[in-house]
């Protein structure tokens, strides 16, 4: 037998330190083993193919001839054995964070547009010309003169169809977008806008910027305001001993997307696989030591938020036997962590201990909204179930508390995007969630004006750590 080990061949240390899930196959595709890149595995001498897949979907494999006592295989997308990797950038100047984003960030699928092919051609041709003119004029400060002339001379159909690319360009140039931050417990109405918040955005690509956020042991919400769209609120996965980073990307249609990264790379990797629906990879990472409770809760460096990610995964994948009693420790040791309650409550419910589960879940209002959408989903679903059951199992007082807790949570659940791992909901006032779109002018809301950050401070090749705020 031969001991086979792995080495990752990315450009950045961040990626090379990942405990990527890997699959070992024989040439006839028979699966030999699923393991992770940090492990050494025993295999019979022979030829093998080792595969891995990144959260953003890039997949690569390496061929290795195994003989003797040990063998080592380098795993890198740059191997490019697979033609499907042609979308992987070969840009040598790709900076660290940009490379991480490349392999972690979900690919953007533009929304469908109800235009016929003919209209598109027309729109592309005419709109492109007018748009270029408008764009140029905008740059010259003459936008309104040209826009008025264009508006007067073109028919309504052209304005709605043919000018679409041009109008999109204007929209992109002029659509306002702002960032705000809130701190506190929005469930109980105890929160405030962080008016002193002056984040520094570090450029990490042509259309991307990154900011780093220092953690606090109370709910921090980042809010993205965009013209014509509902305000989007996201619970930030940071606590006082751990930062998190937010990557803002300007999309082709002029809107911004936000991606979040935990400081714990294993948990971050797991979140990436969640978001892309890559369940096999997520399950493999969950099996790895890197996100085990032992690693994240019982070692010197505590990672309660990363541990929450691991716990949610164990719940998703039904590995109840691996949760033991450490969900109780997660709940008790971190008295500020809402997810500790959501996880413990769901764990108890899965064990059939429903009365205790109800009491635990009802305490969520003390700590605020969970950081992860699974936490809200589990809590709301369980409370609905318990309040709707005909079984006489619960105390009246507990049911009353459950009713009140559900009353507070349901408005958030109604506007939460449960596809996103981090709790993401809409509403200008994060304490009063709704799905109303904002108007065009956003300046009165304050916060960081993204339109004025078009140069994104910092440089593309700057590899210094991002500014802390």
């Amino acid at each position, binding site marked *: 037998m031969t001991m086979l080990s792995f080495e990752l061949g990315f450009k950045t240390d961040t990626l090379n330190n990942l405990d990527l899930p890997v699959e070992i*196959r*024989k*040439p*006839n*595709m*028979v*699966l*030999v083993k699923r393991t992770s890149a940090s492990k050494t595995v025993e295999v019979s001498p022979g030829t093998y*193919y080792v*595969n891995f897949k990144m959260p953003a979907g890039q997949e690569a*494999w390496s*061929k290795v001839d195994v003989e003797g006592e040990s063998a080592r295989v380098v795993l890198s997308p740059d191997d490019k*054995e*697979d*033609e*499907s990797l*042609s979308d992987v950038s070969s840009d040598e100047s790709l900076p660290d964070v940009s490379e991480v984003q490349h392999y972690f960030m979900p690919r953007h*699928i*533009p*929304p*469908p*547009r*109800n235009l016929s092919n003919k209209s598109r051609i027309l729109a592309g041709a005419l709109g492109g010309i007018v748009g270029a003119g408008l764009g140029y004029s905008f740059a010259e400060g003459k936008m309104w003169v040209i826009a008025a002339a264009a508006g007067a001379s073109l028919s309504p159909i052209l304005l709605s169809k043919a000018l679409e690319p041009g109008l999109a360009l204007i929209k992109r140039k002029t659509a306002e977008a702002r960032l705000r931050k809130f701190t506190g417990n929005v469930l109980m109405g105890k929160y405030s806008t962080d008016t002193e918040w002056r984040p520094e955005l570090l450029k990490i690509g042509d259309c991307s910027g990154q900011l780093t956020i220092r953690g606090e042991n109370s709910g921090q919400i980042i809010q993205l305001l965009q013209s014509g769209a509902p305000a989007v609120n996201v619970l930030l996965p940071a606590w006082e001993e751990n930062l998190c980073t937010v990557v803002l990307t300007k999309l082709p249609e002029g809107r911004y997307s936000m991606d979040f990264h935990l400081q714990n790379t294993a948990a971050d990797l797991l979140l990436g696989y969640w978001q*892309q*629906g*890559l*369940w*096999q990879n997520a*399950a493999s990472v969950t099996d790895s030591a890197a996100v085990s409770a032992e690693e994240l809760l019982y070692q010197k460096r505590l990672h309660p938020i990363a541990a929450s990610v691991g716990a949610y995964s164990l719940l*998703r*994948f*039904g*590995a*109840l036997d691996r949760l033991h009693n450490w969900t109780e420790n997660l709940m008790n040791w971190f008295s500020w962590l809402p997810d500790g309650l959501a996880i413990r409550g769901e764990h108890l*419910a*899965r*064990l*059939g201990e*429903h009365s205790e589960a109800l009491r635990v879940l009802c305490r969520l209002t003390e700590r605020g909204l969970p950081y992860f959408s699974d936490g809200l*989903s589990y809590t*709301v*679903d369980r409370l*609905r*179930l*318990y309040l*709707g*059951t*005909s*079984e006489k*199992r619960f105390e009246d007082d507990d049911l009353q508390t459950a009713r009140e807790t559900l009353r507070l949570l*349901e408005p958030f*659940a*109604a*506007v*939460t*995007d*449960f*596809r996103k791992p981090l709790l993401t909901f809409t509403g200008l006032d994060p304490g009063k969630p709704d799905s109303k779109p904002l108007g065009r002018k956003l300046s009165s809301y304050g916060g960081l004006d993204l339109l004025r950050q078009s140069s994104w401070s910092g440089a593309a090749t700057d590899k210094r750590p991002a500014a802390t705020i």
Partner: protein
Amino acid sequence: MALVFDNRSNLDNQPGLHALIGGVSLYKHLPGGGGPPPEEDWELPQLSATALTGYKIYRWLIDHQQMLPIKLATVRLLLSPSATETPEIAKGMQEIRTALAGQNVILDDNYSPCNLQSFSDEARAWRTDARTNNLNITFFYFAGHGIQRKNNDPVLLLEDFGNPSVDMLTNSVVFNKLFDGMVPQSDPSKQIARTQLYFVDACRVIPPNLSKYEFQNISNILTGDLGGVDNRSAPIFYGTVSNAKAYAKGGKQTLFSEALIKCLENDGGETTDQEDENGYAKWRVSVYSLSEALNEKVAAIKALDIDQEFYSIPRGQNTTIVNLNAPPQVDGMIEIEPGKAVQFFTLDLTDSLGASVWSMSPVNPHPHPRRLPAGYYTIKATITNPPQPSYNNYSKTILVKPPKDYWLKARVG
């Protein structure tokens, strides 16, 4: 009689797969349904493909029962078809009868209407069957109108939805309650299928003015205790995400069911740790591989300018849904680069066991479309037409696997 397929007598108390399938196209109380109109119709139209989709899922189970991880035991089919779907379904039921003749399976061509009474009765009977063995598998599929009361709370609308003689939502099913009703019981000695597959192929939008309706009167289809240790593998595959619509090809089938069947038959294939008698890997579709393959289908849906996004939740450990008889087939292109060199080369493709799969000289048409079984292949481009230009022979091993198409380039220049 909804029990259209009953194979229990052949199973001799062995575990089996029990399916409950609902498909509603005809809504009696919506415009055009012939019944008294509802208090409001939320602009929901009659449908043309969802009952047929229910039948097609049944047909798929029948046609692929040898690929299921355990034997198909029962199928309960609840359909409310439109007038145009009815004859096609009747013809298909007859075909099934012919195909299964002599197999000692009890068949019934008469599916039940997908109304509250039938659904409630059959769901209970389905659960009773599920409770005969922990190793049973249950399969639930619903295609029809759906709404949400709140987020993450799908409600399935049945044929008699909107009947003005009862509350607006009385004749509907709260999916989460159905799911909760299938939980393992508190008494650990009592059994129930620990693998439960759920497919919800319906819109998930919140109708206007919904808040004025009481929801307490929605029927509890499956009541029971809150359950004991919930160690099910119970993935839920939704046809669409929260607050979005699901679509169908008019008169044919839903987009989700079409994608699902493609994934179950081919595109969701993944290798196992088993070899077949010819030395190739055995393939299967698992809960996780199906989820990933369905995700890949979303891009194709978006390309049709349709804002539908399949969504799945794993809820438990990975498990096999079907075993594939052969490696999945993958479409793709084979190309020599640069293209002007094509006349000088022979291209050979061999599989992982060295067997020749394909050879052509010169490649024509170029690029050459070719469907290949998934696997590792070695592509060789050899100069066969001297005088030799400034090109090189080329050889490389590549991986071909679903759900994406491949594109092989022999770079000879």
